């Protein structure tokens, strides 16, 4: 199957310039921010000068110094260290928490869109019920009844956030279902399950992935907020939310305690949002 042009290329050696697709700048910046933060979280034990629970009782509520770069809290713990370990806690919980609603929502949305009928009605009515609850109200109720800890946070976030994925994937499936390639796959007698997972889902999943970036931001905010309200990951595990709650008592004298961890949250959110926007641009270009 050699075409004339290919032969020509083979005969006349040309220094071929590799076709480089320009990546959206927001993708590159977002990815860079995220890689730095994730690396800081992963290598926290190597970077951090202290242990997150180690107390320096001669330096309580100290300002920034060579010894403690960002100062210490009311128990003399190093804030920079706790910030790094907080990233470890909050990011790992958020990244894991986004997985199950993603999978569950994608499966339910694809099934609802593909089969339609009563299955579609049931799934979408359940979605309507979940959306009737404000996000934080339902998450807080579920974490309360299930008991404190990360397991409850995973379950609560799954129950609440599968809906968005289901709606996105259902919408995509409704369109894809009537496309030529799906219709011909049906005529060829391929099983429904195979059509959904091999033909439809790969085509509609990209939008769900873009949404997942902003959903991780939502999850980080939820975890941090639960920690702030005293309903999240129990102490002494360092968490950005509980760090800010502890700093609340020292607003008049040490306002930085309650605000610095928030800056970490904002930067993480910025990285993820840029990454999401960049991904969306990239996919639109294709």
């Amino acid at each position, binding site marked *: 199957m050699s075409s004339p042009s290919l032969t020509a290329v083979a005969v006349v050696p040309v220094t071929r310039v590799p076709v480089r697709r320009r990546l959206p700048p927001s993708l590159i910046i977002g990815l860079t921010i995220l890689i730095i933060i994730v690396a800081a979280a992963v290598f926290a034990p190597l970077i951090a000068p202290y242990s997150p629970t180690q107390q320096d009782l001669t330096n309580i509520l100290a300002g920034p110094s060579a010894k403690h770069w960002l100062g210490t809290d009311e128990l003399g713990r190093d804030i920079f260290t706790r910030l790094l370990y907080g990233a470890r806690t909050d990011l790992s919980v958020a990244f894991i928490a986004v997985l199950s609603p993603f999978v569950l929502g994608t499966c339910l949305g694809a099934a609802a869109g593909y089969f339609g009928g009563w299955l579609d009605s049931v799934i979408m*009515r*359940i979605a*309507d*019920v*979940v*959306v*009737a*609850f*404000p*996000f*934080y*109200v*339902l998450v*807080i*109720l*579920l974490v*309360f*009844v*299930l*008991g404190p800890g990360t397991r409850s946070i995973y379950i609560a976030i799954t129950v609440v956030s599968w809906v968005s994925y289901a709606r996105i994937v259902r919408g995509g499936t409704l369109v894809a279902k009537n496309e030529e390639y799906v219709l011909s796959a049906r005529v060829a007698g391929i099983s429904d399950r195979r059509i959904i997972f091999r033909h439809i889902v790969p085509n509609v999943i990209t939008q769900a992935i873009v949404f997942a970036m*902003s959903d991780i*931001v939502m999850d*980080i*905010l939820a975890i*941090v*907020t639960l920690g*702030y*309200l*005293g*309903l999240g990951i129990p102490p002494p595990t360092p968490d950005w*939310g509980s760090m*800010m709650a502890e700093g*609340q008592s020292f*607003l*008049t004298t040490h*306002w930085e305690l*309650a*605000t610095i961890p*928030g800056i970490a*949250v*904002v*930067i*993480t*959110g*910025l990285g*993820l*949002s*840029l990454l999401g*926007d960049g991904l969306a641009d990239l996919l639109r270009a294709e």
Partner: protein
Amino acid sequence: MLLRYITRRLVILVPVVLGVTILVFFSIHLVPGDPARSFLGDRATPAAVAALHREWGLNEPIPVQYWLFMSRLLHGNLGQSLFYQSSVAGLIGGRLPVTLLLLLYAAVLSVLISVPLAMAAARRPDGIADHIVRAIGLVGIGMPSFWVGTILIIIFALRLHIFAVAGYGNGLVGHLQSLVLPGLTIAISIAPMLVRSLRASMIEALNSDYVAFAKAKGATAPTVVMRYGLRNASISAVTILGINIGFLVGGTLVIENVFALPGLGSLMVQAILDRDFPVVQGITLVFAVIVVVVYLLTDVAYALLDPRVRLG
């Protein structure tokens, strides 16, 4: 026509409200172990546990329990608090006005913040203003609401001494004054989301045929933006705010705790710390009902403002 539309919306809401009550009712069965013992604590006497079992009907089959729950609910009975000597409905009734006033405040402030930003951005997509607004949005979307509140407290209460740090103040003027910072906090927190949707709908409006027609007739750019952009934006602002009412309500839940406001949100968190299940359950239900009612009002308002909807 409008009446038929409203009736149709109401009929659609019935299964949603039923589902909400089922979920709220069922939450007690997610408690690991015996819920009565779990909430009363280890030192509770067997008699107290048995009494609570009877009161909540925990020994009955689940469908019967739900029936009991619903018949109590339809009589406006949300149960007794485990912590206070009071009915849940009474506790909620005392706190509800604060939360509703804060919601209204936050809604008004978020429109005042979001609409001008969205208009500035939509006038020239990809222009300087648009880029600035989008950059603000990207930074803003990751801001925890309680963190925004903390910063506002530091600036306006502790440094500038313009507002009180926390509390609800005395009298209507005091209340309105004390709600400025909390309302502003919620408005700033949800503004990035609102601006994003508003900007998109305004760009669509400004690209529509009737705007092109107005321009062709010789309308100046500001006239077009104000007359056509703004009018359509206000319709979309109402709708977008309605759709995002869940975030607004969730915002009040968190922010009441930052500013020590005596509303439902602070009561809910306090009830959780007291392990006062009936209060938590009741407040969850009320929050969900607020959201459902606002969804309905949004639909009605939309139908009133835009006649095309009613015919669909």
